[in-house]
């Protein structure tokens, strides 16, 4: 039954895409985030639905869309360079078969990120892209939110419809993404034009933000908690009454503590005691290994190079209570442990050049969004919507960069779509600025001629 509904939904979107090719791009965005083929059993998982969608999206753009306003920006160039560099490291990878498996989806993610801004020629397209990204992620977040509120959660326990722990269905990843989109949802509550921000839209957005905040609790991920703190701090920039805001945030945090499940508070308390925690100790050991590995292999070992690691670390175990409990150190030996950090993932797999490219793509985005945030900060101006959108995209990116310190999500497609939206917004506003600068010049000439 669910299969038929998904097929009908996709058929409807593809059908509408024949009239407006940009809807085909949105269809691919939806498929890439939700992966409906994983939620069904018969129909969709027997056809390469993702391939069909991307062929339709690119084909629709090539054949039917106007390309006069499309611009290829330097940051898209960097993404293409990163794509080619990854291809080169895959050819000489330490583990060729595993590397090829990862390459098969990474190249699609990067190629789509370079392509996406070409289609974002109007404000409405940027808004539509973000709306589809949010609603697609919401189909997982709402499930997680309701189940958390109903008491079903825990680290690696929250049932998010799919149990294979990949893509956005992985606990830490969905925590980071759910918190990253909170400022974007808040933007839709004031500036949305597809769904006008009336009481129904605002009510839905508030409920969705609440569900987003519940995800780190439901998945008991420490990364998610850090991301919430970062969003709360960054929101201070846009608040007029800063003291009132801080007081309200503090009060809300205190009031929520009694409602938090014990599994969540227990896991959060391990943030401070990393030397007694196996997960944190593994990370530190793997990161040390990666730094040494990069010294010997400055150009990286290709995808999945972590499979070659052998690590040994010690964790402290405490027996008994009281003022002087017995503390013993236990040695743990492990191998082929994942990076648990996008920065070290890039360093180990793509070496220093890859890490530099990856960081440049992110840092340039952050700087450009800051420029736009300041340039369009006047809410009464023609582009009063653009400043807050740049701020929201910047906050989302910062949350990702924080989450990425603890999860190996260097090539998370959702984030590359956010980067695509940033590039699209930037080039759209640059074009409009040039057009706006040309109009007074023309008018000035007319006035001179008439004088």
């Amino acid at each position: 039954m669910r299969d038929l509904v998904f097929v009908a939904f996709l058929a409807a979107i593809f059908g509408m895409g024949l009239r407006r090719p940009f809807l085909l791009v949105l269809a691919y965005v939806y498929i890439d985030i939700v992966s409906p083929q994983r939620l069904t059993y018969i129909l969709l998982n027997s056809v390469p639905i993702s391939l069909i969608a991307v062929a339709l999206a690119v084909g629709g753009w090539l054949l039917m869309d106007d390309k006069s306003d499309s611009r290829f920006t330097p940051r898209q160039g960097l993404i293409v360079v990163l794509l080619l560099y990854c291809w080169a490291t895959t050819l000489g990878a330490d583990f060729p078969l595993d590397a090829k498996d990862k390459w098969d989806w990474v190249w699609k993610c990067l190629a789509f990120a370079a392509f996406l801004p070409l289609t974002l020629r109007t404000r409405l397209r940027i808004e539509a892209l973000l709306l589809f990204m949010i609603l697609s992620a919401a189909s997982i977040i709402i499930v997680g939110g309701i189940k958390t509120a109903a008491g079903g959660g825990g680290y690696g326990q929250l049932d998010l419809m799919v149990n294979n722990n990949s893509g956005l269905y992985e606990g830490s990843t969905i925590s980071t993404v759910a918190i990253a989109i909170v400022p974007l949802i808040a933007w839709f509550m004031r500036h949305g034009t597809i769904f006008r921000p009336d009481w129904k839209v605002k009510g839905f957005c508030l409920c969705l933000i609440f569900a987003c905040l519940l995800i780190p609790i439901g998945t008991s991920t420490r990364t998610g908690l850090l991301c919430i703190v970062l969003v709360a701090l960054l929101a201070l920039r846009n608040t007029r009454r800063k003291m009132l805001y801080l007081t309200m945030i503090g009060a809300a945090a205190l009031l929520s503590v009694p409602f938090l499940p014990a599994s969540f508070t227990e896991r959060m308390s391990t943030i401070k005691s990393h030397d007694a925690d196996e997960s944190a100790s593994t990370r530190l050991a793997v990161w040390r290994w990666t730094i040494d590995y990069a010294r010997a292999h400055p150009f990286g070992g290709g995808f999945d190079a972590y499979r070659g690691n052998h690590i040994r670390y010690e964790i402290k175990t405490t027996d008994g209570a009281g003022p002087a409990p017995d503390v013993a150190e236990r040695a743990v030996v492990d191998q082929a442990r994942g990076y648990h950090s996008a920065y070290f993932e890039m360093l180990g797999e793509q070496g220093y050049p890859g890490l530099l490219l990856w960081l440049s793509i992110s840092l340039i985005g952050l700087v450009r969004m800051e420029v736009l945030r300041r340039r369009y900060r006047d809410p009464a101006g023609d582009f009063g919507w653009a400043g807050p959108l740049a701020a929201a995209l910047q906050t989302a990116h910062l949350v990702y960069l924080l989450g990425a310190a603890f999860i190996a999500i260097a090539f998370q497609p959702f984030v590359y779509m956010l980067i695509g939206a940033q590039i699209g917004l930037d080039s759209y506003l640059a074009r409009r600025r040039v057009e706006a600068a040309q109009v007074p010049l023309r008018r000035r000439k007319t006035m001179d001629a008439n004088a």
Partner: protein
Amino acid sequence: MIDNLSLALTHGLMLLAAWLLLKRPDLDSEAPAPRHWRARRKAPRPAVPDDQPGA
């Protein structure tokens, strides 16, 4: 039950959004002014506001 409710809600909203986008001309173009000089000649001239010197 919760899964289907969430999927129905978000997919319904996406369908509605796509339907609303179909009816929005500014999805594909914000500047209707033609660029080519031939097309520009055929297009009606924009009215000059009263407060401008050329009026």
